[in-house]
């Protein structure tokens, strides 16, 4: 057993454990954090496959950005566990069916390859840049698919903004350009007030 195999089983066990805890954790905040752990562990597995670009991007995008937004949402939800679990057994068969379907699909796709464990990643020299190779492929062979995906994301972004953008008529906002352009004379008016004559002090 090489060091790599040990590390692989370590990360794989961690991924499976974290994945299980995501669905079994009672506290939704804990569930999200276990999902983060699952992402980090799978990034470790990708790193073992010498896919350093994908591994680091997984951490950067999913852990660093997407899960932060998840945490944001979950933190602010008022979660009632009893109500969440109400319909569990009613929907259980549907869930089971979907899960079975997914397992079938994965067997269908991956089972075709002769022996999953038999695939050895190609070893490269230390100066080999996975990122450069990936970039070259994306912008040459797969450029249309890549551009289409980018346009799709752009549409999703525009749609999300358009759906949630509400203009309130009575909202007040600042125009920064006008704020900066303000001169002293627009705001300050110096009035000369004549000094009041001294009142005689009344003493008794």
């Amino acid at each position, binding site marked *: 057993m090489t060091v790599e195999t040990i590390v692989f089983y370590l990360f794989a066990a961690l991924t499976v454990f974290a994945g299980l805890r995501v669905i079994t954790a009672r506290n939704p905040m804990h569930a999200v954090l276990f999902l983060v752990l699952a992402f980090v562990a799978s990034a470790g597995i990708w790193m073992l496959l010498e896919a*350093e*670009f994908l591994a*680091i991007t997984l951490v*950067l995008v999913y852990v660093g950005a997407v899960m932060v937004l998840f945490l944001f949402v979950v933190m602010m939800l008022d979660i009632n566990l009893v109500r969440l679990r109400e319909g569990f057994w009613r929907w259980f068969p549907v869930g089971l069916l979907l899960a079975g379907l997914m397992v079938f699909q994965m067997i269908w796709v991956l089972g075709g390859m002769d022996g999953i464990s038999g695939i050895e990643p190609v070893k490269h020299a230390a100066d080999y*840049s996975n990122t450069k190779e990936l970039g070259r492929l994306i912008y040459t062979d797969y450029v249309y698919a890549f551009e289409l995906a980018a346009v799709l994301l752009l549409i999703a972004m525009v749609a999300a903004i358009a759906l949630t953008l509400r203009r309130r008529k009575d909202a007040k906002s600042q125009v920064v350009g006008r704020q900066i352009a303000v001169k002293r004379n627009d705001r300050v008016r110096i009035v000369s007030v004549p000094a009041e004559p001294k009142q005689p002090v009344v003493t008794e």
Partner: protein
Amino acid sequence: MMELLQTLEQTGLELLGPFWMPVWTVIKIFAIVLPVMGGVAYLTLAERKILGFMQLRPGPNRVGYWGLLQPLADGIKLLLKELIIPAEANKFLFVAAPVLALAPALAAWAVIPFGEGMVIADVNAGLLYLLAMTSLGVYGIIIAGWASNSKYAFLGALRSSAQIVSYELAMGFALVCVLLAAQSMNVGDIVRGQNNGYGLMGWYFIPLFPMFVVYFIAGVAETNRAPFDLAEDESAIVAGFHTEYSGMGFALFFLAEYANMILIAALTTVMFLGGWLSPVPFLPDSIVWMLAKMSFMLFLFLWFRATFPRYRYDQLMRLGWKVFIPLTLVWVVVVAAWMQTPYWLW
């Protein structure tokens, strides 16, 4: 110096064989983490001294000569203080949060070169690794705010994480310009790319000047430092996300903030100011230049704090989303086009 290191490595290899690698790596990690921790301690003193100087007062001057032992006194005080865990707080996450804040700040140092070959991990995806590590720091803050079970801490955490997430984008795009110019994501190669034989003129802060400014300002915002320290807006939300922390828990957040400052200073130096390269061709390149440039960037952090009033939250968001991000996006295109012309001299 280098020969001494090589003989040390040789004897180690003969003595321990295959176990020498992890031992040597741990030694290298200590060689970076300990100076960073010392730097953090004395950065707090430097901050108080420089703020004192700028505000015409002496600053700490009672513990040791010129207050030189003040950081030690502060450290001992924080160690001896009682740890208080608020009622109804989530204990595990409450204790884990400071660690999660500090760990990424230290992990990022793995790929930062201090001199030619003076780096723990000389990896090709170094820049990506840096981006990933700096994006993890926000977890400590969110979890601290949530686990404290305190409204002030929660509001502080929300503010601070929104701020960090927004400014991260601008920082990322600024680094994309650097990687375009260097044509490499290896941090060491980025520094070597700035060596064109004319000293200072080869550094990337000249063609990427707007990115240099954006990166550093975003770095100040990213570390929650004044004038962007809205997370710990004393007058509004007490101390922000670490309101409920006392003793060492607070000290770890403090360490993380200052370690992040030093990290941003080091990153700015490496990306834009030529790392260990000498500013004039007739002086040799050395780690001294790296440290001098980092000290200058750290001085800027303190100078900003003494000079600028705190931003309002909407102004902060406006600066991040409406000024920095469009500017960086445009500059990526400008640099990419510029590099296709013969006028690109870097």
